[in-house]
């Protein structure tokens, strides 16, 4: 065929069989490249998800066969288990306080740093450093001691006239030490905010400057709306993250969630039920409740985005 009419066959056959060949070859090879990921997705994600959903309707202690109990785990959780409800309250309080505090600090410091001045890069790196350390046991130990009895924080408060005692040991304050620890790690969202601030075109600022806008007006009219996609992104990420906090609560309270369950994070209670009491059916049910709550909260944030997140390519927005 090619010999008979080289000019005619070259084009159509070339363009006709190339995509087909590529798809056929690429298809098989693509699954080869993906095979580790597919194995992981099936064996370590989808399989275990289905299994934990099933286990959540059973009594299971890891050593004997799971026993079907229907909705019993879920019913007990919400009606009989006081510690479960406590852990929900503690976690909700933590998420509601730690996330806005951390993001507020991150945004504030990003605005402070967003200037073309010498040393900016240095400050940025230094402010980011706690984000790398904060999740470690070492820093949690520091927190436990710094906010303990007779430690620097108590003395600082004492010098200011507040006699509170060490915060770690007191139910009404203990959670705040963990909130401070979260806020201390504002560097990661700050770096993302800074990157977002750099994306805002400077002619927008020039335009409002010509109109005689003050600082606050500029912030409200330009910076905030232009930054809203980044705020949204950070909010989703930090919220999901905060729901799953574990290490600091474990270390600060020695794995117990004390004092008086004041730092009993949801994940810590789940760990206790599953891996110290071996009530794995119950722990699975708790895991599914967590998944659903995170999904719902994330969905709510996504829905609310229509009201406050401004996308530049969205012409209908003002």
């Amino acid at each position, binding site marked *: 065929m090619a010999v008979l009419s080289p000019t005619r066959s070259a084009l159509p056959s070339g363009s006709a069989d190339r995509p087909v060949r590529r798809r056929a070859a690429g298809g098989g090879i*693509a699954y080869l490249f993906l095979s580790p990921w597919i194995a992981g997705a099936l064996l370590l994600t989808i399989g275990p998800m289905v299994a934990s959903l099933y286990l959540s309707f059973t009594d299971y202690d890891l050593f004997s066969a799971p026993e079907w109990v229907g909705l019993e785990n879920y019913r007990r959780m919400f009606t009989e288990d006081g510690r479960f409800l406590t852990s929900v309250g503690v976690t909700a309080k933590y998420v509601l306080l730690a996330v806005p505090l951390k993001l507020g600090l991150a945004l504030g410091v990003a605005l402070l740093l967003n200037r073309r001045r010498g040393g900016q890069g240095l400050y940025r790196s230094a402010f980011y450093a706690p984000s790398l350390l904060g999740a470690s*046991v070492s820093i949690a130990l520091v927190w436990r001691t710094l906010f303990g009895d007779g430690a620097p924080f108590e003395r600082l408060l004492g010098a200011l006239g507040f006699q509170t005692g060490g915060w770690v040991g007191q139910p009404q304050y203990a959670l705040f030490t963990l909130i401070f620890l979260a806020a201390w790690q504002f560097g990661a969202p700050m770096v993302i905010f800074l990157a977002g601030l750099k994306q805002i075109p400077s002619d927008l600022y020039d335009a409002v400057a010509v109109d005689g806008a003050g600082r606050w007006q500029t912030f409200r009219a330009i910076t905030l709306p232009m930054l809203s996609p980044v705020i949204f992104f950070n909010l989703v990420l930090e919220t999901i993250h905060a729901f799953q906090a574990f290490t600091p609560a474990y270390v600060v309270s020695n794995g117990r969630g004390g004092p008086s369950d004041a730092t009993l994070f949801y994940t810590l209670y789940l760990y206790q039920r599953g891996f110290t009491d071996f009530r794995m059916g119950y722990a699975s049910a708790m895991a599914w409740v967590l998944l659903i709550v995170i999904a719902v909260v994330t969905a709510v944030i996504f829905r609310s985005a229509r009201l406050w997140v401004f996308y530049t390519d969205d012409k209908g927005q003002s």
Partner: protein
Amino acid sequence: MTVLSVPRGRRLGWHLVCVAVLAVLLYPIAWLLGTSLKPPDEVTSSLSLLPRDWQFSNYTEALSGIGGTSFWRFLTNSVVVAGGAVLGNVISCSLAAFAFARLRFRLSGPLFAFMIATIMLPHHVVIIPQYAIFQSLGMIDTFWPLILPKFLATDAFFVFLIVQFMRGIPAELDEAARIDGCGPVRTFWHVMLPLIRPALITTTIFTFIWTWNDFFSQLLYLNSPENYTLPLALRLFIDQTGSSQYGPMFAMSVLTLVPIGLFFLAFQRFLVEGVSTSGLKG
């Protein structure tokens, strides 16, 4: 130009505010360093960051280990776990990313969406069945449950990171390789891998630091002290010794953070760039 045009007083004020923020942020770290060199009675009685009586023996005591297991054993364990995790993530995530970014296959859309969804998935919904699987394989109290999943690209975040990076690389480059007769395997190896080095470095750094700091999975899977990693050894330290051992405990905390500090100093540009371009969490 802008640097010079700002009045000197305002520049100075700006630096003062920044240094104040820095001081508050670095105080806990400075306190940790100071306390690691203090004798027990100074830990809470003295507010000074510097010890009055320098106890370098805190460090020798920390290095001697806990309950018969030496510090070096814990360190080796941590290095093995973190090293294995890095190797697994770099290999499996770059392979998967190449398929998603460059190859055409029928399920690419749904699979990619699923991969993204797993980034958001709380670990807890899979942890119990995973534990049961590893238990039935006899892998509890070994490093396998901590390393094996990384070779199966379960850290979907890094797949996404590398996909994003690959999408920024001009398609002409692998077109050219294809025209020269390279199949996908050779294109991946000879063209893609060298080009995505920055993304692989970011993956390496973050996998290392996250695994190094990780406490939850190591707590779950490792039971005997000779298999303990540094975070677990630190916890053991609190359990076995009282507050009298503050000095050595914080000396060990410092030693545990040293590798992260070194990584930070060596790669701070990569770290900060990695965070700002991909939204990585520290």
